[in-house]
């Protein structure tokens, strides 16, 4: 019993690292993804092509490889980052690319008539995006964003390769030391708890932003 308590305490510390990566990545990747989607939709061709390339690169290679690249390859060209910053850089760049594609699809699903109505009422492009288009996009992208967010909770476990003590790595260390599988079960419960909370939160958000639909 005491042993289990000790295990849980250790794993809570690991959870803290996991949550840190999760929240900071989300906080950075969402706005960057939005900007990237607008750039991707830009009529300025070079910008749009650059974004297409970035998205292709991020979605076309494993997140694990991107983590290793940031962690091991960047120092070789003189860029030294603290462990956590390296992990955050890779996670943010990767998730921003996925969010960008989600937002792009959302923006493109808004009927042309909404832009036309805004234009004939005298609204500028920034006003139209801020007041008319994006509030409707939020409602549309919530389910896929929810999906990605839940993926992110689980993807944080990849940082074990960077020798950071996240939830899963702590669990594995204890398992290897004590030949007891309980920590894996505890880890599963922790991940499930986090995704449960997220699922509930997104359900609330969908109801809030969807209140205009009958």
């Amino acid at each position: 019993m005491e042993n289990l308590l000790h295990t849980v305490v250790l794993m809570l510390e690991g959870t803290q690292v996991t949550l840190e990566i999760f929240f900071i990545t989300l906080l950075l990747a969402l706005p960057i993804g939005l900007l990237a989607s607008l750039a991707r939709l830009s009529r300025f061709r070079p910008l749009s092509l650059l974004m297409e390339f970035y998205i292709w690169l991020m979605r076309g290679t494993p997140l694990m490889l991107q983590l290793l690249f940031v962690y091991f390859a960047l120092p070789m060209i003189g860029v030294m980052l603290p462990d956590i910053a390296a992990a955050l850089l890779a996670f943010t760049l990767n998730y921003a690319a996925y969010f960008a594609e989600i937002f792009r699809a959302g923006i493109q699903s808004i009927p042309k008539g909404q832009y036309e109505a805004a234009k004939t009422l005298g609204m500028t492009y920034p006003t139209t995006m801020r007041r008319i288009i994006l509030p409707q996009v939020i409602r549309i992208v919530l389910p896929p964003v929810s999906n990605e967010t839940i993926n992110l909770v689980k993807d944080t476990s990849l940082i074990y390769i960077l020798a950071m003590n996240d939830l899963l790595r702590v669990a594995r260390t204890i398992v290897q030391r004590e030949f007891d599988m309980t920590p894996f079960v505890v880890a599963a419960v922790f991940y499930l708890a986090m995704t449960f909370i997220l699922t509930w939160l997104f359900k609330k958000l969908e109801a809030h932003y969807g209140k205009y639909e009958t």
Partner: protein
Amino acid sequence: MGNTRPDSNVMLRMTDIRKSFSGNEVLKGIDIEVRKGELLAIIGPSGSGKSTLLRCVNMLETIDDGSISIEGEFLADKGVYATGDKARRILGCTGMVFQQFNLFPHMTVMENLLEAPMQVKGMKRKEIQPLAEELLAKVGLSDRADYYPSQLSGGQQQRVAIARALAMKPDIMLFDEPTSALDPELTGEVLKTMRELAEEHMTMVVVTHEMAFAREAASKVIFMADGNIVEQGKPEEFFEHPREERTKAFLRNML
């Protein structure tokens, strides 16, 4: 300034309007003139260019050549558009009602009316609310102020769209087939609202398939086909004594 000019009553003038979509000429040199308080009805088969012509008035489409002046100011002069603040000021004189209503679905009826005056004109809510309430009463929807568009019938949505355009106090109202997306039993309420506007001497350009409405409410009717104006005139003579074969054939099919 405008008062001294002999044509100061001309609200909208389009001369020699030409427009092509990828090599296909849809407007082949159109001239129209709408005077203050007039209701110009534009009718014609689909593909005749009538909606495109209307959409050129407020730059939803751009013309290739020709001139557009609104209340004496050039929005486009020989194919070259005004830009920046000048264009915005001229376009501010027009209001538009769409076939598909295009209400903002995430806003209530009242918010739809308040949005542009507050965001574009920078008005305070309490400054614009009285006019918004008055306009909702006028279109008979005072009791729907807090509804979302999805909770309204098509006819009610279109009346909200009319009120939303009017909230910007336009001098000219443009209607692009305002009843074409409605069930037949709902067109009446929208046409009634439009008639009332006409009775208040709002200057209106209406692209429509509603022949009865054009006949009763219009000051002038234009019949377009294949990018040309085939025939125009006062509604009585236009509908009673059409001169062109093309017009006669069209009216036979419509009535």
